[in-house]
């Protein structure tokens, strides 16, 4: 099976992200592979192993996003491709989907595309389904488990009400959730291989597409309202006494 894992680079989840002068600042926090996309790479590698296939990591981003691709390579991806172009700085999810679909078609012969369920930055989670729509391939979203059999892919989709088991013929687009399994740590050999890897860069020209103008644009960036941070510590003679006082306080706040 020829599998593509789509990833993105984002500020580390530990970062204190702030709005400063209308811009997003994450201080000196490092840029890392989007944590959800580590699960995508893990899911892709599981299917590579199950089907004796290959995994190509694919990313849209600046030159520095190669670091995220190297993480995927160190985990076990066979190769990596960066799509980079100044025109891509302002694209929205529809733009990303069109560009990714063009890259997937250029790679050719792809059986399965795996995404994480959303990114930590914008967090809209739209790109997987939009990429599937551009390609005209079935979308198997929010998979907690993937099984490949006779050219068909079956996933257990994690929904509000439980799990829905959905089957489609490949090629398919999948997004995965955490139940797919903890992402493996890069091996020592993997890290060595990744550090030496030559990652090709494709421009929009190489893909023969243009960057669609974003439909949704930001007009304002806001820090969340500060919370009233004066905590009142409840003490008492016994746990029952503390519980009694706390319950009264909570009931008086009318939040029940």
């Amino acid at each position, binding site marked *: 099976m020829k599998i593509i894992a789509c990833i993105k680079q984002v*500020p580390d*989840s530990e970062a*204190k*992200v*702030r*709005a400063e002068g209308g811009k*997003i600042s994450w201080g000196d926090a490092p840029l890392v592979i989007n*944590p959800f996309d580590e699960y995508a790479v893990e899911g892709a590698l599981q299917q590579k192993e199950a089907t004796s296939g290959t995994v190509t990591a694919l990313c849209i981003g600046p030159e520095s996003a190669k670091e995220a691709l190297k993480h995927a390579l160190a985990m076990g991806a066979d190769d990596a491709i960066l799509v980079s172009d100044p025109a891509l700085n302002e694209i929205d*999810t529809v733009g990303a989907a069109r560009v990714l679909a063009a890259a997937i078609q250029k790679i050719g012969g792809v059986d399965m595309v795996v995404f994480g369920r959303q990114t*930590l*930055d914008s*967090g*809209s*989670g*739209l790109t*997987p*389904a939009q990429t*599937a*729509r*551009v390609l005209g391939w079935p*979308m*198997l979203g929010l998979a907690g488990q993937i099984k490949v059999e006779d050219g068909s892919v079956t996933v*257990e989709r*994690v929904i509000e*009400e*439980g*799990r*829905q*088991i*959905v089957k*489609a013929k490949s090629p398919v687009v999948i997004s995965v959730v*955490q139940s797919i399994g*903890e992402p493996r740590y890069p091996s020592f050999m993997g890290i060595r291989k990744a550090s030496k890897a030559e990652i090709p860069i494709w421009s929009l020209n190489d893909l023969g597409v243009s960057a669609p103008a974003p*439909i*949704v*644009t*930001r007009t*304002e*960036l*806001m*820090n*969340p309202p500060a*919370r*009233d*941070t004066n*905590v*009142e*510590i*409840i003490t008492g003679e016994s*746990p*029952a006494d*503390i*519980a009694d006082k*706390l*319950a009264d306080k*909570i*009931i008086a*706040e009318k*939040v*029940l």
Partner: protein
Amino acid sequence: MKTFVYIDHFKGEVQPGSWEALGLAKTFGAATALVFGSAVEDVAKAAFEYGADEVLLADDPVLLDYRAEPYASTLSALASSSTPDLILFPTTTRTRELAAMSALDLNSNVITDATAVEINSDTIFVTRPIYEAKLFEKVTASARPQLITLRGRAFPKPEQEAGRTGTITKVEAKTEALSSVEGYSVAEVGVSLNDAGVIVSGGRGVSNNPSLQPPAGMDDKQAEVWRAQQGFKLVGELASVLGGAVGASRAAVDAGYIPYSNQVGQTGKVVAPDLYIAAGISGAIQHLAGIRSAKMVVAINKDADAPIFKVARYGVVGDLFVILPALTEAFKKKLGK
């Protein structure tokens, strides 16, 4: 503003956020509810009781099970012919997907997880959280229709008006499907985190009760998980008395104490309950971001320096294994349960 509201349901069980969307739509004028499925007239009837002025019903056996492609195509066809300005959805696993696809068909896009929607002389402004709710952005959209998914509990749910009715118009379902549904395993979910007014969450601390004696034959890890499960029973009992949902920190999920679907914060859910009780949760930055929209936080933790106390209104520095059951008892008495 001509507004459509997509009513999301699972086998006729409506996601409550759908009614919140209907309530918001009514503030912009008349609201048309969209109901897709098979034999779902009851959902259409309920939509009138929550304020819909009209229902467009795509009722077809192919739509019995939700699948993104036929649902998206049905919506796209409908939106192309009726040209609404706005299509509102609750944010659910289904709507994120079908809105994404339909937006692509309609040369538009989706704004997800809206916490505020304003219309100012025909320009739509939407506020939404980004970076795990560490920041908020206000965005505007140039295309019509604009698709917006609303964050759960960010908008008031309208009162149900029993017996209110209206006209149902049948519309054509698009039936080309690319996948087949082989079955379901429906979990006993209880109250969902997204819709919960009260959430009681446990963290790594719930396993930290050495006085509990695990059954013989368990290794250390099994014993730890077993202890944690006893701890989560206490969390669940308090949640149950308060009619709330059970949440968990990432640490508790990663340690295998409780399924991922219960996770709040980072890679988990961003929640907005009226009351959030955190037991044995220290309060990592991602967890705090995930509960930022909670109206009130109560923290129970052994460590008086735990960051969770910085966002809490009330705190108890103490052992959750003692405090939680006492609190459950106190509420049982006071709430007459």
